[in-house]
């Protein structure tokens, strides 16, 4: 059974996957697997930029949306024409001949990855390039075009070590996707920098504690050479930040609302015995 594994941290945002999908499917008829995709408007493999943080602590992560090839695919049960089927290799196909254009699959899909082709009056989506796999290809075009290895495709059994730490996209209806993700951008960083305003120097080795105001769980780290701290992959929630260094007046920032990646900014830590600003 095939799986697709997407490592968000490895994706450099080149969009090759999105374009390679179009190269394979636009103006090319791969019936009975797929009819041509329109020039624009459909994204069988869609990349979206997610900008995280604020100047100068900014990252971009790239979300990938594609058919999740669910083992319990809501689209299959929703289709009134019995046009959608699951292959032995796990790939879900909308038969372009059988599709009657009633669009029930679009509503049923919890991931919004099925598109409607008004010219052909059919629903369309990612086929994992099954027409190529059937010819002996080992990967669909999106994976073939990936320069970083962020996309991996193969047998579930062969990739099981990597799948162990991967997750699937949540959905309201249990669907059992066959597309797995590593490092999904569903947790956030909380970052900042600490400096001494009197000496005008960054402060390395400052103890910064991140305390969840809900669970009271505390994580502690030391600022780096730039005085920076990055708490990676934190659950959304409300936090308190405690900043401490010997010889300095400890500072607390709270509440910190982590509903997205957050740069709390440059924090001036006052030396003890100095006038507070």
């Amino acid at each position, binding site marked *: 059974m095939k799986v697709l594994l997407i490592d968000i941290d490895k994706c450099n945002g080149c969009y090759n996957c999105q374009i390679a999908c179009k190269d394979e499917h636009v103006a090319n008829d791969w019936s009975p697997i797929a009819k041509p995709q329109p020039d624009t408007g459909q994204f069988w493999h869609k990349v979206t930029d997610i900008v995280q943080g604020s*100047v*100068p602590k900014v990252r971009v992560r790239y979300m990938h949306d594609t058919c999740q090839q669910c083992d319990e695919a809501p689209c299959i049960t929703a289709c009134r024409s019995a046009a959608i089927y699951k292959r032995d290799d796990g790939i879900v196909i909308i038969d372009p001949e059988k599709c009657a254009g009633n669009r029930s699959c679009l509503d049923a899909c919890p991931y919004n990855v099925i598109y409607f082709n008004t010219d052909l009056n059919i629903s369309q989506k990612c086929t994992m390039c099954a027409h190529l796999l059937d010819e002996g290809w080992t990967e669909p*075009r999106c994976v073939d075009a990936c320069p970083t290895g962020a996309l991996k495709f193969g047998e579930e059994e062969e990739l099981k070590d990597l799948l162990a730490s991967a997750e699937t996209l949540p959905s309201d209806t249990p669907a059992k996707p066959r597309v797995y993700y590593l490092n999904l951008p569903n947790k956030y960083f909380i970052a900042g920098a600490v400096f001494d305003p009197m000496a005008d120097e960054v402060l390395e080795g400052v103890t910064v504690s991140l305390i969840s105001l809900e669970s009271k769980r505390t994580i502690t780290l030391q600022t780096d050479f730039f005085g920076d701290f990055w708490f990676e992959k934190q659950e959304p929630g409300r936090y308190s930040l405690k900043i401490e260094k010997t010889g300095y007046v400890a500072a607390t920032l709270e509440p910190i609302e982590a509903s997205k990646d957050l740069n709390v900014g440059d924090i001036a830590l006052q030396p003890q015995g100095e006038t507070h600003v």
Partner: protein
Amino acid sequence: MAEQEFINCGIGAMLKVTVKDGVITRMRPLRLTEEDGGRWTIEAKGKKFSDPRKTTINPFNIAERMRIYAENRTKYPMKRKNFDPTGERHPELRGKDEYVRITWDEAYDLFVKEITRIRETYGPAAVTAFVSSHHNYGLLYYKMGPMPRFYNILGYTQLLDNPDSWEGWHWGSMHTWGWYWRFGQCDNFDMLAEAMKNTEQVIYWSVDPNTSAGGYGGQETVIWREWLRELGIPGIFIDPYCNSTAAHMADKWLAPRPGTDAALAEAIAYQWIRDDTYDHWFIENRTVHFDEWKDYILGETDGVPKSPEWAAPICDIPAHTIRAVARQWASKKSMLACGAQYGVGGACRNSYATEWASLMIHLIAMQGIGKEGVNIWAGTAHGAPLDMSFKSAGYSDVGWDVFGLVAKHPTFPDGNSVTQRVYRLLLPEAILDGHIEWRGEGFCVQYPTQQFKPMQYPEPGPNGAEIRMIHRHGGSFISTMTDTSKWVRMYQSPKLEFVVMQDCHWQSETKFGDLILPASTNFEHQDISEWAQPGGYGNGNVNCNHRILMYQQKCIEPLWESKPDYQIYCELAERLGFLEEYTEGNSEEDWIRKVFDYTDLPKYISYEEFKKKGYFVVPSLPEDYKPTVSNRWYYKGRPVDTPDRFNPLQGTDKATQMATPSGKIEFKRTILEQYFPDDEERPVMPRYIPLYEGHETKGLVEKYPLQLMTPHAKYSYHTHQDNKIPWLNDIRQHRIIKDGYPYWPFRMNPADAEARGIKDGDIVMVYNDRAKVLGVALVTERCRPGLVHSYQAGAKYDPLEPGVAESIDRGGCVNLLSHSRMTSKNAYGEANMSFLVEVSKWEA
């Protein structure tokens, strides 16, 4: 018909092309087989890394099919409707006239009649011809190919290119450390293994390799930076914009204001001097005039210490952060991956960019360039362990006639009977004003003072002539050249009696032609090349994981009535009576065969096999290969040992030296001291000079408070893919479709947008005294405050009033907004990296 597969190359990225029933259906990377060879492994920090066995490509390469079949291909020979060569020519209608279809014979007749008349009336110097970079890939069909050979034989006013992606290096650092044969930039051999084994951090300064290094070599180097991450080698990024590479992997991002990089560099040097964290041995033994520069940095000559506190308000970076970066840099073995060579970068294309480029050399010299783990690694873009001794051919190996590599009679340098020259950046002034002066012979790679040579147009004396005919071939200069409106005005000048546009597409500029010659793409003819090998001034700069020589196979017949460029020039040469001299009796394939024989290919593969297979991977280095890391020889004081074929000191008694007057790295540019001792815009000792148009420009910044920066585009190579491939318009970083129109994005910081009532996705007008350009606001934290970021060279110039130079442009032609003032008064480089604008919401 069954599917066929071909090998070809799209703007530098090697492609496997599927063709079914004579139609291209697929473009994809090439997978190497076991028998292809070329394998290598780098062992670093207990891990092993091997060459990827498939090539990498860019999204616009994958989409090349849409470019080939684009609706706006030129398709047929055309004549401008109101252009009457025997009566009224109506030059004022260029840019808005209609076109009528003509036959090739009619087109050739018109061409021959006009060029003959103009040559007889005004002399051969009245004709100029030029070709853009990179619109078609291939050795023989490249810009040094069919066009210059044709015109060298005929005689014409050669248009001199400015070194357009390396201005600061060419005009500045060349005088600090030589390397004039490479535009003032060093070679980068064996750098990948060196970095992985010995480097502790990488400083990416004004460079975005994920965007620009791919131009030639696809995304070959992307995996290298993934390896650096895996090895825990951090990356510090310095760029006003959180560029694509930084956004993906920066461990630290510093966002100085555009054009203030030189101040930041001086402050870093100051901190090293104060902390005494620089390489005294290297300074003493490998450099000259450090003490004089040190006095300047410390403020002993002008009373202004160039301290982090001094730089902080200029760069808008806290002094403590500058100090921390300086200390972090000095504490670790660092590669300076600045924007140079094929890590082409922004800071070298600003006004006074000579200063930043020279200061980069100062900094890396202070850390002992060539020492283990310490070097300039331009954009981390070159230096895989490849066999550079394999003889190949690059398009810049022999100058302006690549056929000269194998021709009986090369037409360069002595072929062109016309000695008059014109300078690309000043071509509009040459036509409109009738007189220009500048310095330098274009790409000045012969000797360091070649760029000082005073030039003027028209050439004084009987052989000079004003230009009456332009033959443009290839990509569009409207949109890539500074203050592009000038080009619109130029084309409408009555002085231009005949304008020929030879192009694959109806580009913005094509619409200014009187005669349109439809050319085909490199997928419609055959050629030979090495992937990503410029040769000459870029010899060895292969930014790929393998050296692959290609027989670029013809995939399809020329579309519509288009013809391959070489065929067009042959047919013109025949009508003008010099076909034999042009071809020397060679067919296209004869030339390919001769280049094949010129290279080392025949030692490994037969011509027939190479032609059939389409590529050859240069075999792996021998087991006992000893790496020759760039600049190591200089550090060690031994003769230069890198395979830099054009280093003139190699094999001489100066082989241990830099190519400067002293033979050492010069903290005071003594050549400048000799030739321009009083030039305050390119002073003898490099220093920060506020931008000609920047945040310190009083009188202008009040009106236009935002700095627009315009680096090379990510999803189009120059103008070549944009406005041809609808798929790219689906990428929001490339174009944003609003009301059905694909607008060019202008990125802004949320605070700047909010202050102007602008929301993400709004149509905005970006303007200054030179132009007004519409686009869509992309509001993002990737922009530092005060910065507007937009890629230069969108291909759509779409004036609301066609043919009117002053019109508002809707297409996103960013260079309408840039100023055309040079790098500085004696450095004739383009300086359009950043300039001042204001942005407002567009309500019309």
